[in-house]
């Protein structure tokens, strides 16, 4: 009597629905990349409240972008080595911590350090994109990539709307403190 393969439908079942998961990935791309772009609308407010020259406050935009570039080079390759779920969730939690650090920064120097850290860790979209592209059949790759990039570019464009409005209404700390705890 040959041993038949034991079946456990609960464990063997595929993760979940395609479209819903792809949509979640797209939203995640937008939210994560927004962290790089929303400081751009805040630098005049930061200059005023932290008593810095506008050009000095604008350094925040530059260091966040540089941090993002460093994260792309140093952390994204880990997507080939570390289980994606562990890597992505860890990076999001670290990003949330960095945002809280930036939002509570007493001086511009602390803000620059925390802002750079946010840039480094918020590289999740660039790990999600190739992973999703690799898990769908070739004939759907363009469509899935397109959906995720919609989320990404939506995040880039709406980030400034979000932080500009919230910063005008409350102050420059509000976007940093709202981002980790909303959505």
């Amino acid at each position, binding site marked *: 009597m*040959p*041993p038949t*393969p*034991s079946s*456990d439908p609960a*464990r*063997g*079942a*595929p*993760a*979940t*629905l*395609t479209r819903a998961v792809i949509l*979640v990935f797209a*939203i995640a791309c937008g*939210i*994560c990349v927004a962290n790089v772009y929303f400081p*751009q609308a805040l630098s005049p407010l930061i200059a005023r409240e932290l008593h810095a020259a506008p050009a000095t406050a604008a350094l925040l935009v530059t260091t966040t972008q540089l941090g993002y570039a460093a994260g792309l*080079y*140093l952390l994204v*390759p*880990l997507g*080939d*080595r*570390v*289980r*994606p*779920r562990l890597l*992505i*969730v860890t990076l*999001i*939690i670290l990003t949330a911590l960095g945002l809280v650090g930036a939002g509570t920064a007493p001086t511009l120097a602390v803000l620059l350090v925390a802002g750079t850290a946010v840039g480094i860790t918020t590289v999740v979209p660039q790990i999600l994109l*190739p992973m*999703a*592209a*690799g*898990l*769908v*059949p*070739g004939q*759907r*790759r*363009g*469509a*899935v*990539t*397109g*959906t995720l*990039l*919609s*989320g990404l*570019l939506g995040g880039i*464009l*709406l980030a*400034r*709307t979000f932080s*500009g409005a919230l910063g*005008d209404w409350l102050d420059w700390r509000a976007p940093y403190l709202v*981002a980790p705890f909303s*959505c």
Partner: protein
Amino acid sequence: MLILAVVLARVLPVTSPPNREHYGALLAAPVRLVRAEPELRRSCVYQALMFGTFSAAWTSIALLLTGPSYGLSTAAVGVFALIGAGAVLVTPVAGRRIDRVGPDRISLVSFTGGLGAAALLALAAVPILHGAASLVLLAAGMLLLDVAVQCGQVANQARIFGLPGRIPLRRLRGTDLWYVVVELPEGSRIEYQLEVAHGEQRESINDPLNRRLAHSPLGSSSVCYARGYEVPEWTQPDPVSRPGSLVDLVVPSRALRRDCQVTLYLPARFRRTARYPLLIVHDGGDYLKYASASTVLDNLIHRLDVAETIAAFVSPGDRLVEYANSAAHARYLTAELMPRLEEEFPLAGTPSARCLMGASFGAVAALSTAYRYPGAYGSLLLQSGSFVFTDIGNDHGGGPAFEPVVRFVNRYRAAPRRVADRVFVSCGVYEPLIIRNRSMVPTFEAAGMAVRYVEARDGHSWENWRDRLREGLSWIFPGPQKFYYE
């Protein structure tokens, strides 16, 4: 962010990372890839140009709108960004178009859109156009720029995530010659055909100007060798190698309810007093015909790369049924064919001296047979296995024949089991199956099996499988030469 972390922790598929290289090697990989992959370099340059334009335009538009010429508030900049964000609706459309016409056409659309956007933005600066007209032009220009960047980015990503299946040919002006330029990394070997359209009718033909052909059960196709590829000489007949003999057997099978044809390979200098390992080869007829299996065995055994081995080349009846995790097929091999061969021929008869081998669906058959009889086979040689599984959704893109395969592979990945001691896995990097094969490696290792994994710059083809036989067979049944060195 935190809600997102919780949601992603729930929906992210449990996939294993594709490799375990050192972090330093991972950091070096992008540099190596940029140097080796022309398509990647092209995507990088396109993306830098378009995204640079996009960043410059969006940074300066905020200053322009809030500056002296327009005197608007920051809220107006937000509204502009909202209009531009409308472009996100375009990306899924661009993605679907790329799936049909390839990324290059969409890159062209992107550049054209970028130039159009520049024209609109320049027009907005014409001094006579003040106020509303100028603002409308600015908004239209930014929207067009966003659309162009989106299209370009999707095309660039699609280009690096996989070469398109179809590449359009161009006509050399004023002649009847058609051409396409494809840059191939060193050592590549690709098979291709030309698709000729007569109105609605499409016909695939071999390249009439290329005499080099590769054959398979489905017919032939043209072959192109990139620089650095050479047909391994051990796959070609060598008068010095003493040939083994091929014996045809008929094995009546109760499990499969048919008489099964088996071609047995007996090595040169075959002796009844010796004890040989047994290699069972799925799609055996095809391996003999299209992958020169008996010539390869003659040469590798003669050169002491591979131990003297008896190989049983089996052939399927209804392949898509028998090779798709069939209990009857596993029973035929393990409870009927193997005992009969071990009774009639001088075989070692121990699990470590038995190997199941197969390519594509045949590799699924080899794995599922070992899965049903764990411990019966010491090693597996799996080439370009159709290990189709679904981590996300249930759309595997393979058609109904794959349903039982997907169920089997999903189950195996959920609860990996040690089914043999050693597994050799090979796959071509130009096969869509490369991702599936890569991600089976950690699964096999996690189950406690020794794995040797090899990738080649080749496709889903018999010559790819032929070219990988030396590495696979000499690892599984090493010849005395190997023992001498080890």
